[in-house]
């Protein structure tokens, strides 16, 4: 079976520092993959290389058989790879509903046959906001949102592009116990609807609950990839997290 995402030998250097030293990764459609690693291990760099925010120095990235490397970020989003940001980055001058409208206008409507008109766009915006539980704040400005609402807006905006693969970069950072469960439930629901998800997270409880596969990066290298229960018992992973 062809993998949905195929990453081969992806490298990224910043001057003399190697942030990613040849990452290989294959993700099948429908998988829930947790990507973990200590700070500075290269998780966000990998996300940025996959999504096109950063240009990789070597290797290749394919999504559903289509080569992504070399394409700008917006083209990758249109092809079905969406991401949320580690720190919420809403469009501050636009309302919550308008924030979701942007990807609808530039991805769904940019695809062949996709032509949502005014009422269609509004209806789809509200549908997406309803999905993440933000419909009551649709007319508010992002600055008026709480932390969890900001996180949900990030996810709603990513979902608006109708992705096949969603990369959620620390979507639960800074949230309370209950709020983490809420986001977790949302991500699981999205996965059940057919969206493949890579979750980058430091909160181990959430990662273990969410993932059916765990990938560990340390110092720009993949040191483990497998079932979560096995990976966390891997001596190399223990050493990376707890030291010798």
């Amino acid at each position, binding site marked *: 079976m062809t993998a949905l995402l195929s990453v081969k030998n992806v490298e990224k250097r910043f001057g003399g520092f190697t942030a990613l030293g040849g990452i290989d990764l294959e993700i099948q459609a429908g998988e829930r993959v947790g990507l973990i690693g200590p700070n500075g291990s290269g998780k966000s760099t990998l996300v940025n290389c996959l*999504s*096109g*925010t950063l240009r990789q120095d070597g290797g290749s990235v394919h999504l559903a058989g289509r080569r992504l490397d070399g394409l*700008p*970020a*917006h*083209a990758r*989003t*249109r092809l079905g790879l*969406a*991401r949320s*940001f580690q720190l919420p*980055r*809403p*469009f*501050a*001058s*636009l309302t919550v509903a*308008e924030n979701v*409208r*942007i*990807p609808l*206008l*530039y*991805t769904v*409507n*940019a695809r062949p046959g996709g032509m949502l008109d005014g009422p269609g766009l509004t209806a789809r915006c509200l549908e997406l906001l309803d999905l993440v539980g933000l419909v009551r704040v649709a007319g508010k400005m992002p600055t008026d949102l709480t932390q969890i609402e900001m996180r949900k807006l990030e996810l709603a*905006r*990513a979902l*608006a*592009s109708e992705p096949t693969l969603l990369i959620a970069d620390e979507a639960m950072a800074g949230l309370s116990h209950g709020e983490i469960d809420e986001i977790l439930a949302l991500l699981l629901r999205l996965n059940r609807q057919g969206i493949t998800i890579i979750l980058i997270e430091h909160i181990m409880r959430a990662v273990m609950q969410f993932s059916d596969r765990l990938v560990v990066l340390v110092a720009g290298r993949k040191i483990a990839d497998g079932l979560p229960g096995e990976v966390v018992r891997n001596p190399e992973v223990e050493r990376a997290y707890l030291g010798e």
Partner: protein
Amino acid sequence: MRNLPFLVLALLAAAAVFGAAKFVGNSYVFFAGYVVLQYVVLATAWNILGGYVGYVNFGTAAFLALGAYSSVAIHKLFPMPIPALILIGGLVSGVIGLLMGYLTLRLRGAFFSIATLALAVVVQTFIINWSFVGGSRGAYIVRPRTTAFFGIDYIEYLFLIMLALAVIAVFSARCIEHSRLGYGFAAIRDDEAAAEASGVPTLRLKLLATTLSGAFMGMAGAPLPYYVTYLDPASGFSLTYAVNAIAMPLIGGTGSWIGPVIGAVLLGTLQQIATVTISSALNLLIVGLVLVGFVIAAPNGLLGLLRGERR
């Protein structure tokens, strides 16, 4: 078609402005009004890139001068009616805007602004050394007293043309603001990386913005040689244009099409009154004082003040 009522209203407002100027019956009203309308176009053009996309252009004078000097060059080669010169001026400045975009749009913030300032210096140096359009000596254009088409006074004709151009510029800005393009521009202004991640082709949109903005500035400059009758680099590349084009949208409010119009009408009129009552040398001082006042009291411009916003 949903913009049609606005276009009708804008045309009615323009007709009312022209009627009011006619009613006053003093040709100086047309002379001063031309400058105010020119600033409406310039401020609106600046706002397309600076207000909608968030890229501050310090090179307004270069784009305006390119339009003006295109007219001088065409006038010397094969004279054409002013509407044709406006189209040519817009084309020349639009192409330069596109090239500037290609060269500078990977720069952001202050670096982009400094690059636009450098463009103004490069264009000015080029014009100073191009003797065909007068070089540093400047160029004279003898304008007729009346026009062949309307039989009206030439200044009234220029006023009418600038009025039409102002309607076109403001109408275009409003259409952009409420379109898919406008949403894309706003996304870039708020967060470029997030805009890309949302599928917005940021580079293409920024190039479109620099082209449109430059084209309208060039169009505003095209009739200038016929208005001033003597154009030299010092006046064509005057700092006043660059400063006013930034100050007017900031004073009116940058987020909407109406902000630059309000700023241009208020500040432009104030400058024209100061010119006839005190001295034209006070123009920049007035801009500076008003701008400082607004930065302190109404950082989001008059529109922000009306909405009760504070940055």
